[in-house]
């Protein structure tokens, strides 16, 4: 089933040099579309849209998490106090 997700990746310094988003597209057959990003010394974040089969998106995000990328909803946490 085709799906679209809006997510925010947060990278710590050791991952900033890794071509994570390129590999998402190449290895998992999802389309990535970066909408905003901020990379600073030691930390960076990217807000992107990921489109593809739901199962492919899930696998892609799980792979990113396994690398140490923090994956969150683009809008921030939806659970509140």
């Amino acid at each position, binding site marked *: 089933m085709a799906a679209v997700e809006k997510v925010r990746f947060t990278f710590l310094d050791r991952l900033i040099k890794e071509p994570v988003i390129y590999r998402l597209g190449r290895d998992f057959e999802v389309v990535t579309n970066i909408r905003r990003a901020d990379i600073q010394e030691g930390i960076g*974040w990217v807000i992107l849209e990921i489109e593809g089969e739901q199962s492919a998106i899930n696998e892609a995000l799980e792979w990113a998490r396994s690398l140490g990328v923090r994956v969150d909803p683009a809008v921030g946490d939806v*659970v*509140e106090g």
Partner: protein
Amino acid sequence: MRQAVATLTASCAHLYYVSSFTSLDRESVRHTGAESANRRIGFGEIKGVAIVSHVLSLRCKECSREYPVEALNVCDFCFGPLEVVYDYDAITKVTSRERIMGGPNSLWRYADYLPAEHNPAVDINAGFTPLLRARGLAELLGLDELWIKNDSVNPSYSFKDRVVAIASAKALELGFDTIACASTGNLACAVAAVAARGGMKAYVFIPSDLEAGKVLGAAIYNPTMVSIDGSYDDVNRLCSEVADQYPWAFVNINVRPFYADGSKTLGFEVAEQLGWRSPDHVVAPSASGAMFTKIYQGLKEFERTGLIGEVHTQMHCAQARGCSPIATAYEEGRFVIRPVKPNSVATSLAIGNPADGYYALKVIEASNGSAVITEENEVAEGVKLLAETEGIFTEGAGGVAIMGLKRLVETGKIKSNESVVVYITGNGLKTTELVSDVVNPLHIEPSVEAFEIAMAERAK
């Protein structure tokens, strides 16, 4: 979802389109609003002259693209958050201190500044809570002028009644019959209470390990309550997916721009209650960062529309060590929030990836304020300190704020002769587990002799 909303809206358009307009048709809409003042609106009745909200549009906080006033919270282009745009010239023309003071004793006295119209059907009388001069705590801390904004006495016992008041009124205007939220407690209580009064359907999603007081505080209003097993991230992810798939007003998601502006009234009220001035310092607990930024926006809107003088308030954000993404970013001197896995006894502040964290940091910068971290083992101490000195029983978030205040005084960021307002946003009766060790009564046989012996023992 848009399809479902459109169908509902079309069926009742004459009832609630009045607040969804652009500057081009302002005059005609204003007229329509007055005409409809005595009609039945949504589930309730507005008597007298209706106050039409001065909303122009929604706008992306990042790229400034504008959107119509709908159930939208994210910019289609950059995925930035949307905020409500007001016609401040129009507000300035109608607003006055007298007009506000003549309004109801609730947050609706500030209706000119709010993005939804008052609807009694979902009004549980949120807001206009006490601002108390805290002489005992002030003396203890060495402050001349300390005030406590006691928002723990709202109808469902937290400041969330304010944001849900606006979200629910707007949800009815937009044609929703169901409101929902994902919450660690206070928001669930507020959503359930408002829905009960308004005859709306309510869905509240809560983590399965929530404190009993907060579960009960929401369940009593009989919403559909969904208790979710799993990690914080699991709960978050599920709720995000549910919000995408169901045609509900998810108060802090698709109607978030309106919801968030309910917290502006925390700024308005303090300014009015201080005699139409802003304090030198505000200390407020922070989770998503939305309330913190909106308090400041409220003060600045009063300044902009001429109700108070220039605002010099320094905004201080207090977080607990176990979940302090905003305060940590502040301490490290950066504007990038590093999300964390929450692990704090102040459960109402346990938001690991704060949606408005960046904007809270910008408010700190703009106001020359700061952020302060309360250690986990100090949270209960703060709760007890406020109770023992001022007679106010707050939850962990209040303990975080009080100990944050103490630290700000100790480090010289707040001077003894400066005025300070501390926001207490939730009630301690929902989280009694945090301070259960205070229960230590004199236990005696029913005789005066036994009483006097026990008193003598206690005196030792």
